[in-house]
């Protein structure tokens, strides 16, 4: 790019920069933060250096999901405004070496973050980490634009609901072609899909038409692990943990088989389906 000899400062920048991936959805409450925490954990467990950035200024949550709420001393705006260095603000994960969190400012407004500053911050993180996952706030306003600004890739999280798909459709339109968005269908209930009472992954993606990164079933263990502040992906043995690890492998460029979520119906579920199910 530069024809002239690079100056010393430029030469100090590593040639290979990490990938900044924004995790977004438009609609709130579909599981962006949980997805960010688990994907970050799974990527870090593969040995990658991962920074998780909570871009939801004013509604900080990623620290809670990671169980790091008591360790956050500085936040993203501190770094941008010079109140703290990046090293002071980055909080290491309790469980996973090489995973670090940059928390959002809790008592500030999204509008206070200039987009250029946000982009510059993500660039700095890309110099030090293999992956920078940005947890995007709900909505499509300033906070969304900021979260997206520094990213090169996007992962959209969608639940099998009319409202969520509609919002993701809008977000895809706003993202354009630049971010190569991939889809995670979250909170799928295979039993309901089987009985025709929920949109299937195929239904959702017939509309969104994105490369499918993965499918996460609606499991109680996600709520339990979130309660404890221990990302589910710390364990690979369960179906959901394995699904996050499969997604991480796919992000890393491995050829992973197409994700499936089996309907594991309980006896009572079957009885219910037999009597009250499909008309």
């Amino acid at each position, binding site marked *: 790019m530069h024809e002239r000899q690079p100056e010393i400062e430029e030469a100090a920048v590593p040639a290979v920069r990490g990938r900044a991936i924004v995790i977004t959805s438009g609609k709130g409450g579909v599981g962006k933060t949980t997805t960010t925490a688990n994907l970050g954990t799974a990527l870090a467990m593969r040995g990658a250096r991962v920074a998780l950035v909570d871009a939801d200024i004013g509604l900080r949550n990623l620290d809670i999901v990671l169980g790091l709420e008591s360790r956050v001393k500085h936040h993203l705006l501190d770094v941008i405004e010079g109140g703290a260095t990046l090293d002071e603000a980055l909080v290491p994960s309790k469980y996973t070496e090489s995973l670090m969190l940059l928390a959002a400012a809790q008592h500030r407004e999204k509008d206070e973050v200039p987009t250029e500053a946000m982009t510059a911050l993500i660039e700095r993180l890309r110099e030090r980490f293999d992956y920078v996952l940005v947890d995007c706030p709900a909505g499509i306003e300033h906070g969304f634009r900021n979260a997206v600004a520094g990213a090169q890739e996007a992962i959209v999280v969608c639940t099998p*609901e*009319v409202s969520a*798909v*509609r919002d993701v*459709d*809008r977000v895809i*339109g706003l993202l354009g072609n630049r971010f190569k968005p991939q889809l995670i269908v979250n909170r799928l209930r295979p039993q*309901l*899909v089987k*009985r*025709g*009472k*929920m*949109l*299937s992954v195929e*239904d959702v993606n017939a*509309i969104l038409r994105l490369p499918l990164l993965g499918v996460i079933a609606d499991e109680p263990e996600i709520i339990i692990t979130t309660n404890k502040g221990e990302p589910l992906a710390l364990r690979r043995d369960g179906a959901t943990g394995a699904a996050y690890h499969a997604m991480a492998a796919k992000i890393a460029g491995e050829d992973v088989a197409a994700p499936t979520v089996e309907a594991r119906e309980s006896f009572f579920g079957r009885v219910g389906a037999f009597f*009250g*199910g*499909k*008309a």
Partner: protein
Amino acid sequence: MIEFLKRLFGPSDSGATAKQRLQLVLMTDHLALAPEMIEAMKRELVEVISRYVEVDREKVEVDFERHDHALAMMANVPILGVARPSERAPERAPEAPAPVLAAEPVAAGPQPLQQRKRRKKAQRAPA
């Protein structure tokens, strides 16, 4: 009877309902986000109709109406004049059927071209 049984054994698949509602809502969303596409469609629509009848271009209205299960385009195209049938001739697009023949039911399946031409001639002769 089937309806009664359906009602007795629970509602029909709500997943299918969700799918249908989603498709409809997205069609409406996409239309709302593409005013220039609607304008382009309106222009072409007027152009096609104008080949056959004289249209009041200023007063053409195109609207989209949403019903429970479908989206419909409603076009209001005021017609200023219709030429006498004998004066009408396809000015453009020779592929398109002449207005007189437009009412002819479209034959199902492919038809040899020659045969179709002959039929056209046969129809035109008595007129």
